[in-house]
């Protein structure tokens, strides 16, 4: 039993940061992300016998993703998501003056991401940050590879649109 526990910890604890990052991309607050990560690890431990021994990170991330969706469904209410967006949009342009152009672009990217549906944020993170292949994405998200292609393409297009929209809004506010 202890051996199993040690093996589990050795395999999955090194991916805690990646697990937290995914959870935090999917939900809007740090506290929610923490709860999801803890629940996901407990789920992973329960299902550890089903782990085939390859790609521990991918296996864990799939569990984090599924746990996040269940968690959101269970705790869903307009509260967190709406409040988060309001906080961002309540800040006036002057309060958000960029410290540098790069920082300004990073802030814009963050804001644009918050306006994307969770399914788009998820596929962007898994593909572009985590580097998952289309095959891995299809398996984890339980969708055909054709859908992976189209969802990824739509997600990137929407992100570009949101970034452009943010820039236009700020230009209008300036004038």
């Amino acid at each position, binding site marked *: 039993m202890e051996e199993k526990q040690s093996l589990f910890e050795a395999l999955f604890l090194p991916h805690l940061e990646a697990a937290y990052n995914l959870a935090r991309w999917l939900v809007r607050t740090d506290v929610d992300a923490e709860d999801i990560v*803890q629940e996901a690890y407990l789920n992973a431990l329960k299902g550890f016998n089903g782990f085939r021994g390859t790609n521990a990170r991918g296996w864990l991330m799939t569990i984090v993703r599924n746990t996040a969706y269940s968690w959101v469904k269970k705790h869903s209410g307009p509260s967190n998501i709406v409040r988060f967006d309001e906080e961002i949009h309540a800040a006036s342009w002057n309060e958000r003056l960029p410290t540098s152009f790069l920082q300004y672009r990073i802030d814009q990217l963050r804001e644009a991401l918050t306006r994307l549906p969770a399914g788009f944020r998820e596929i962007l993170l898994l593909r572009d940050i985590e580097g998952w292949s*289309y095959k891995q994405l299809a398996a984890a998200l339980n969708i055909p590879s054709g859908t992976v292609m189209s969802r990824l393409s739509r997600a990137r297009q929407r992100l*570009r649109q949101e970034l452009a929209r943010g820039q236009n809004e700020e230009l209008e506010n300036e004038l």
Partner: protein
Amino acid sequence: MNCEEVDRFLDVYLDGELDSGQALELEQHFSHCQSCKSLAKERREFLAFFKACAPAYKSPPQLRAELLAKLRGGTPKRTFSFLRSPWIYSAAALVLGSFLALDIFRDSGNELYREAVLHHSRSLTGTHLLDVTSD
């Protein structure tokens, strides 16, 4: 391959997931279509920007310890988790404020009392008949 097909397959090509035959067709199209070539460059740059600048959230320092405690079946050591609730600070401020206010009122009450006794004692002395306040 025409421009419309290039647009459809561009993301897959940039991800290195397009099969080699189609990738070759796409590259041949770039050689005679400046507009699609520029589009590919623009998308590649955007992807590079996104990968470099996308938010990477760091887990809070206590998470690892809390998680280990839970995994090992112990009591989760969320010792200071209540400190993350904003209401706790409002409550603390209220309690502290009440104590301070009570203290101030008690002091000012004592001061008034002392002054009244002093005035009364002075008025009782034979040489002191009247107190006149000067500003």
